[in-house]
């Protein structure tokens, strides 16, 4: 870990970084793997794999529950990861970090424990048109239960949010604004800081879905001043099945539990149960301990790569891909926001994205072809689906070139 630390800080060395990701070395259909499905999930560096291994080989025990040495080690590793995540997002207080199964569960937790008890008939939750299904459906569920309604701020043809239109929808009955930091389907970066300021000026709390931002942008929840920030470990080089919810302490303290079970209680009798303090109140049952440890290792890894250098590198890849794809006749890029990160989505003539995906896969290029859990975005642009290439710190200019070459192949095959 330290070796990477010192080298990478001097110079962003992508070859050196790639060596940390053994999976990238393989061949797919006889060609070198070009992994461009990172917005879906990223590959895992050796440091994360070793942390998982080490945990199971040396420290495995249940946490917070036993007074033997292994349990102490496991608890330390788990709580150590909480502190790493706190530092990563610059939360004030380590108790403001709740471990969840992922971004989806983090949003559901807020929907059920924060929103639902407060919502009355005709109250409103404000979203944008570019949200992922996991930042739509949990709100629909609480709306159904309470008689509240969703309001949706439009996006432009370029995939940008008009801040004024969003602000105009912040009304007396708006109880929460829930917005993506970065769109997974379009790559648009939303002006989250400004949105929070506008919402707070009207007394409205804000949840930020940071699933696509945390791997790419520096996240400082105190600077953003958002009330909740949700993200997943597996999209930032950590294991699947683990994520985090940041919530402001005062809000979390006032929220009822999400699920009942072990660890989330202070005392239980059949007459009365008192709940544990934050964050344990929201972590019922034995959590994904190894996953959390791996998440902590992933955060350490990412920080060691020098986030500013990562950002510059990924931005160059996105620019290169956008420019080269735009030169292909009949190719239409979906999502041309001024500020974008990590993702280029496109459709190619009348060739269905699914067919494009199959051709690319045959060339060793892994992308996602589909609706990206963002059906309203597809409908907005009148496309059944898109092809999406998404970048990570280990991608190279050659990866982009391979993608573009493979798209030209589609043209050969389908004779567009």
């Amino acid at each position: 870990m330290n070796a990477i630390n010192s080298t990478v800080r001097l110079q962003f060395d992508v070859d050196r970084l790639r060596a940390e990701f053994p999976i990238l070395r393989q061949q797919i259909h006889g060609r070198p793997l070009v992994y461009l499905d990172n917005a879906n999930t990223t590959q895992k560096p050796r440091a994360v794999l070793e942390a998982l291994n080490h945990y199971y080989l040396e420290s495995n025990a249940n946490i917070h529950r036993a007074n033997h040495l292994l349990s102490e080690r496991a608890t330390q590793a788990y709580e150590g990861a909480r502190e790493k995540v706190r530092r990563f997002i610059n939360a004030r207080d380590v108790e403001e970090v709740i471990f969840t199964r992922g971004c989806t569960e983090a949003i559901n937790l807020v929907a059920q424990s924060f929103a639902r008890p407060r919502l009355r008939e005709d109250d409103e939750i404000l979203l944008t048109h570019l949200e992922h299904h996991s930042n739509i459906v949990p709100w629909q569920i609480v709306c159904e239960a309470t008689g509240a309604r969703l309001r949706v701020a439009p996006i432009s043809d370029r995939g940008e949010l008009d801040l004024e239109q969003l602000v105009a929808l912040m009304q007396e009955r708006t109880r929460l604004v829930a917005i993506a930091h970065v769109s997974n389907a379009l790559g648009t970066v939303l002006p989250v800081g400004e949105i929070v300021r506008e919402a707070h000026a009207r007394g409205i709390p804000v949840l930020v879905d940071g699933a696509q931002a945390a791997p790419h942008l520096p996240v400082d929840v105190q600077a953003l001043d958002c009330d909740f920030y949700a993200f997943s470990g597996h999209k930032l080089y950590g294991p699947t099945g683990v994520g985090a919810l940041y919530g402001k302490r005062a809000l979390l303290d006032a929220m009822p539990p999400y699920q009942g079970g072990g660890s989330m209680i202070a005392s239980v009798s059949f007459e009365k149960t008192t709940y544990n303090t934050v964050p344990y109140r929201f972590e019922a049952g034995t959590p994904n301990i190894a996953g959390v440890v791996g998440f902590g290792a992933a955060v350490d890894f990412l920080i060691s790569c020098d986030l500013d250098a990562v950002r510059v590198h990924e931005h160059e890849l996105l620019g290169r891909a956008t420019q080269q794809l735009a030169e292909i006749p009949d190719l239409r890029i979906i999502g041309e926001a001024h500020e974008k990160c990590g993702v280029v989505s496109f459709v190619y003539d009348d060739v269905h994205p699914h067919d494009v995906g199959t051709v690319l896969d045959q060339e060793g290029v892994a992308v996602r072809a589909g609706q990206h859990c963002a059906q309203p975005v597809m409908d907005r642009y009148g496309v059944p689906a898109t092809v999406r290439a998404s970048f990570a710190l280990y991608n190279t200019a050659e990866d982009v070139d391979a993608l573009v070459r493979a798209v030209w192949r589609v043209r050969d095959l389908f004779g567009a």
Partner: protein
Amino acid sequence: MSELRDLYQEVILDHNKRPRNFGALEPADRRAIGHNPLCGDKLTVYVRLDGTRVADVRFEGQGCAISKASASMMTEMVKGLSRDDIAALFESFHHLVTAPDAGDEGDHLGKLTVFAGVREYPTRVKCATLSWHTLRAALEDEAPQPVTTE
């Protein structure tokens, strides 16, 4: 590229570009909607019946080359067939696109054998069979629910 040609045979590309029996059938005796949520494919199959036989069949909707060509070629194959004939044909077709040892149904399936390449692409099996599932739903049920491949 040559492997891809096995999947995307000329006949398939041709039916994709110029689907046969494409567009609504009015009036129709039966109609069913098929949906593959994985890729967003959605198609409607219309059937006019003559007793238990399919007198006419058309489809409309959007989908990938495999699903569109499969629907197009299906409509050509099933006209005039009885419900039982169609069920048997679907079973052979399903075998063709899924079973590793398939290949001896040639006579029976006729030109549908161009879809044999699909079996090398497990994620595309649903594309090839969507129209068939939808046709079956249309034939089995007088008021069919939308079928999905999930």
